[in-house]
C-alpha cells in the first residue's frame, strides 16, 4: 500500500461521513442494515482487497470521529485509553471487524510516527505483535516503541513478553524506563529478575560474565543491586582463578595440587565455597592476589564469623594445625598472645573433630571452652582426659574425680595424675 492510497482512503472515510447523517435513535439498526448490504455485496464481487478498503460504512468513520484525528501519546499511554472506544462497548468486535482498514505492521508504525492514530488491537497473533515491535525499533522512534510496548504489556502474558524482550534489548530498555517512570515497582522487579534469570541458561562462563555485567546496569533496588554486582564480581574472580589453577595443576609443579587434585572447577560455585577453595589452595598468598582468602573477605565483606568457620574447615581438612592455631591467636599491644574465637570454641572443637584432629590438638581447644558443663561434656565425649581431670580439680570435686578414675586406663599417666590430685585435695 502506498501513501497515495492511504490518503485517498482517508478522503473517502471523511467525506462519506459528512455526507451522511444518522438518525440518532435508529443508528444501530441502520448500521446493521448497511452491514448486511455490504456483506452481500462482497459475496458478489468476491473478496477484493480494494473493495474492503473503500467499502462504505459508518463504522470506522464513527471510530475516527470519536477519537479525533490524532491520538496524543498520553492517551496512548493510559491503559484504558484504547479500551473505552464507544463502538466496542456497543457490539462485539466481530461485527465491525470486516471494515477496519488492513494496515500492515509496517504501515501502522509509519502512521503512528506521523501522529496518525491506528488501532493496534487488530494485531492479535504474537507474530504480528512482535513484527510491530521490531518495526518500531527499526525506525528508532521512542514514542512509538513505548506505545507499542504498552499495547504488548496489556495483551501479552507477562512471561511471554519478558521472554521476547530478552532478544530485543532496545525495546527492553524502553520498557524498563517506562515502568520506572510510572512507578510500577512490582512489574519492574519481575522484569529485571526475569532478565537476570537468563544467565542460568548461558553455559559458557565468559559469556555468562558478560551477561551479568549487563545486569549490573539494570535499575535494581539498592539491596538487590549489591547482590547482582557481587555475583558478577565473583564470577569474574572465578574465571581468573580457574584459568590460573588449571594451568598450575597441569604443570604439576605445585605440591598442593599434586597432593590434592581438584575435584571440579570453581566456576559458578557459591561465594563461601569459593572462599573454602581459596583457603585450601591459596591460603598463604599475599592480600594483593585475586585468589587470596583475605582479598575475597575484603571484596565481598564476608563477616568474621563466616570467614573463620570456612578457613578453619579448610585448614583442618589439610591437617594444618599450625594455621588453625594462628587463626585464633591474637596479640594485644603489649605483645601478650590470647586465644579468641568469634564462633565459640565449642564450634571449633566440633569442626576439628569432624576432620579427625588428634586428641592433643583437640584438647587444647576443649580447654578453651568457657562454659564448664559444655567443656566437661566435650572433653568426655572426645576422651580428652587431661581436660576432664583438670576441670574437676579446679572444681575441687573429689567425688567426680574418683568416679572418673575408673574410666581411665589402669596404670596410665592419667591415673597417676588423678591419684596425685586426690592426695593433695
Amino acid at each position, binding site marked *: 500500500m502506498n501513501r497515495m492510497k492511504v490518503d485517498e482512503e482517508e478522503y473517502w472515510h471523511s467525506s462519506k461521513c459528512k455526507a451522511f447523517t444518522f438518525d440518532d435513535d435508529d443508528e444501530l439498526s441502520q448500521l446493521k442494515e448497511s452491514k448486511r448490504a455490504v456483506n452481500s455485496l462482497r459475496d458478489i464481487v468476491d473478496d477484493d482487497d480494494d473493495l474492503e478498503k473503500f467499502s462504505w460504512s459508518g463504522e470506522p468513520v464513527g471510530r475516527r470521529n470519536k477519537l479525533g484525528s490524532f491520538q496524543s501519546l498520553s492517551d496512548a499511554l493510559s491503559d484504558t485509553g484504547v479500551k473505552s472506544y464507544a463502538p466496542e462497548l456497543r457490539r462485539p468486535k466481530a461485527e465491525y471487524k470486516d471494515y477496519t482498514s488492513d494496515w500492515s505492521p509496517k504501515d501502522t508504525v509509519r502512521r503512528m510516527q506521523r501522529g496518525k492514530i491506528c488501532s493496534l488491537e487488530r494485531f492479535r497473533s504474537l507474530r504480528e505483535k512482535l513484527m510491530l515491535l521490531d518495526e518500531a525499533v527499526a525506525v528508532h522512534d521512542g514514542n512509538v516503541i513505548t506505545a507499542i510496548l504498552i499495547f504488548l504489556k496489556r495483551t501479552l502474558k507477562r512471561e511471554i513478553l519478558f521472554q521476547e524482550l530478552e532478544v530485543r534489548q532496545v525495546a527492553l530498555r524502553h520498557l524498563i524506563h517506562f515502568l520506572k517512570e510510572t512507578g510500577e515497582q512490582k512489574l519492574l522487579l519481575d522484569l529485571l*529478575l526475569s532478565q*537476570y534469570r537468563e544467565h*542460568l541458561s548461558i553455559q559458557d562462563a565468559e559469556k555468562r560474565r558478560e551477561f551479568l555485567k549487563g545486569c549490573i546496569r539494570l535499575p535494581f533496588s539498592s539491596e538487590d543491586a549489591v547482590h*547482582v554486582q557481587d555475583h558478577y564480581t*565473583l564470577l569474574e574472580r572465578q574465571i581468573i582463578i580457574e584459568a590460573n589453577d588449571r594451568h598450575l595443576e597441569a604443570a604439576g609443579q605445585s605440591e598442593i595440587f599434586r597432593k590434592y587434585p581438584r575435584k*571440579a572447577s570453581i566456576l559458578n560455585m557459591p561465594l*563461601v565455597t569459593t572462599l573454602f577453595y581459596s583457603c585450601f589452595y591459596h591460603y598463604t598468598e599475599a592480600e594483593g592476589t585475586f585468589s587470596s582468602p583475605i582479598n575475597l573477605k575484603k571484596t565481598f565483606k564476608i563477616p568474621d*564469623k563466616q570467614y573463620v568457620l570456612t578457613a578453619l574447615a579448610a585448614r583442618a581438612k589439610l591437617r594444618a594445625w599450625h594455621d588453625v592455631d594462628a587463626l585464633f591467636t591474637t596479640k594485644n599491644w603489649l605483645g601478650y598472645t590470647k586465644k579468641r574465637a568469634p564462633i565459640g570454641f565449642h564450634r571449633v572443637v566440633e569442626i576439628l573433630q569432624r576432620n579427625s584432629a588428634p586428641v592433643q590438638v583437640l584438647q587444647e581447644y576443649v580447654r578453651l571452652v568457657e562454659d564448664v558443663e559444655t567443656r566437661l561434656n566435650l572433653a568426655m565425649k572426645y576422651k580428652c582426659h587431661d581436660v576432664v581431670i583438670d576441670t574437676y580439680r579446679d572444681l575441687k570435686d573429689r567425688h567426680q574425680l574418683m568416679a572418673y578414675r575408673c574410666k581411665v586406663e589402669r596404670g596410665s599417666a592419667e591415673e597417676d595424675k588423678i591419684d596425685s590430685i586426690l592426695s593433695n585435695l
Partner: protein
Amino acid sequence: MAAHLSSGRVNLTALREAGRRELREFLDKCAGSKAIVWDEYLTGPFGLIAQYSLLKEHEVEKMFTLKAGRLPPADVKNIIFFVRPRLELMDIIAENVLSEDRVRSPLRDFHILFVPRRSLLCEQRLKDQGVLGSFIHREQYSMDLIPFDGDLLSMESESAFKECYLENDQTSLYHAAKGLMTLQALYGTIPQIFGKGDCARHVANMMIRMKREFPGGQNSIFPVFDTLLLLDRNVDLLSPLATQLTYEGLIDEIYGIQNTYVKLPPEKFAPKKQGEGGKDLPTEPKKLQLNSAEELYAEIRDKNFNAVGSVLSKKAKIISAAFEERHHAKTVGEIKQFVSQLPHMQAARSSLANHTSIAELIKDITTSEDFFDNLTVEQEFMSGIDTDKVNNYTEDCIAQKHPLIKILRLVCLQSVCNSGLKQKVLDHYKREILQTYGYEHILTLNNLEKAGLLKLQTSSRNNYPTIRKTMRLWMDDVNEQNPNDISYVYSGYAPLSVRLAQLLARPGWRSIEEVLKMLPGPHFEERQQLPTGLQKKRQQGENRVTLVFFLGGVTYAEIAALRFLSQMEDGGTEYVIATTKLINGTNWIKSLMEKLEPPPF
C-alpha cells in the same frame, strides 16, 4: 479393594465408582485390544481410581511410559495416550506417531485422553505437527478430586499454590470448583458455604455461577454435606512450615508420601531368617501403601509420634498372645477355629512388623540432636520468643550448609510468626543465604516474598501475638498421649487453619471478627437454596458433616487435627477434607523455588 473409602461418614466409593465408569466408557469406545502410553505423572493418581485389573478387563494388554522416539512394539489394535495437556508432551506424541507410520506396521488406531482437560492449544500443536488427523478419539477425563481415603480427597495438582499466588493463574481454582460441582451432583447440593481468602471467594463465585448455568436444573439428591468451608492456604502460611509431629506427618516429612505410597530404606525390612544370612540385603527401597484399609495404620497414623510406641508394644503383646492360643487348642473344633483366624493374624503381624520398622527409622531421626534443636527453634518462634532478631541456630545451619530448604523453612517461619522481619534481620539472612548457596537464589527469595512467606515488617505492629492469643494457637500443657486439643499434632502449636474450622462450628466466626480481619482476604458466607423436600431434619445427636477444602494444599498434621475434631465426643461435627494437593513444608517450599540446574557436585 477400596473398602477404606466407604468406612467414613460419607461413602466416597461412589465418587471413585463414577470415575471408573467414565474410564470404562472411554476404553470401550476404542474397540479391540489396546496399549496405553502413560504420561508418567498420571500413573500415581490413576492408580487410586483403577488398578491394572480394570484396564485388563477392557482389553488393555500393554502399558508404556511416554518417551521420545519410536513406540515399543505391541500387537494391539489401539494405542491410547493418557496425558496432561502440555505442549512438550504433544511433541513427544507427534514423534511417536510419525515414527510409527514409517515402520509400516499393521494398522493401529490412535487415541488421546487428556487429563484433566482437552486443550485447544495442544490440539493445535498436534495439527501443526501434522498428526491431529491420526487420532480417532480425542477426549478428556476430568480427574478433579481423587479419593485418597474415607475422608480425604485431593486434586494432586502440584503447582496449584504457585500458580495462584505467584503466577496469577487461577485454572486450578476452576478445577476445584468443577470438582465441587461433581461432588454435589453425587452427594447433593451443599446448603451452606463459608470461606476465607481471595481464592476461596473465587471458587464460591464460580460454584454459584456454574449452578445457575447448569441446564439440568435442580439436583434431587438428599444432601450429605451440611457445610462447605473453603480456606486459602495463604490465610495460614504457618502450619505447613512447622515440622509435623504425627506419625503419618513424620513419615511424610522424612520419606515423602506420594499418592498414598511411601518408599523406605530397605535395611530395616530385611527378612529375619535363622542362620543370619546377612549377605543379600535388599537394595530396592521398600514400597508400602498407607491408608486406613490397614487397621493398625488407621489407629496410629494421626497420633503424636510419642504415643505410637506404646500402641505398637501393646499390639505386639496381643498378637503374640493370640499365637500362643494354639497351645491351648485341644479339640479339633478349637484347632479349626484357630486356623480360620490365622490369615487375619498373619496380616496383623506383618502390619505390626512394618510399622515397628518404620517407627524405628523415624525414631533414629527424631532422637537426633539436630532434630531436637530444629524443633526447639520452631517452637520458640511459634510461641513468640525472639522472633525479631537473627536466630543463632539458623545461622549455624547456614554456616554448616544444611539443605537450603531447611533454612528457608526456618526463615519463613520466623517471618510469618513476626508478621514480617525487620529490614536488618531480613537483609542479614538474605546475604548469608546468597553467599553460602549462590547468588542465583535471589530468584527463589523473590518468589517467597511474592507468596508472602518472607516479608519485610511494614507496620511497626506485629499481629501474630494477637492472633495467637485469641485463637489459642499455642498451648503450653499439651498432652501427647491422650490429647484433649488439636495442638497435639505439632506438640504445642494448634494449626490456625483447623482452629478456624473448629471456631466456625462452635461458637461461630462472629466471635473472632477482629482476628479474621487481620488475616488476608475476605471472609464470607453463602447459602444455596434447597427445595423443601430436601431440607434436613436433624435427628437428636446426629453430627453435622462439613467439607473443608484447602486451596493451595494441606498437611497430614492438619488432617489429623480435623480427624481429632471429628472424633471428639461432644464435637457435633464430622469433617471430610479436600485439597488441591497434599503437602509438607519441604515439597511446598520446593514448588516455590526457582528451578536451577543441579550443581556439579
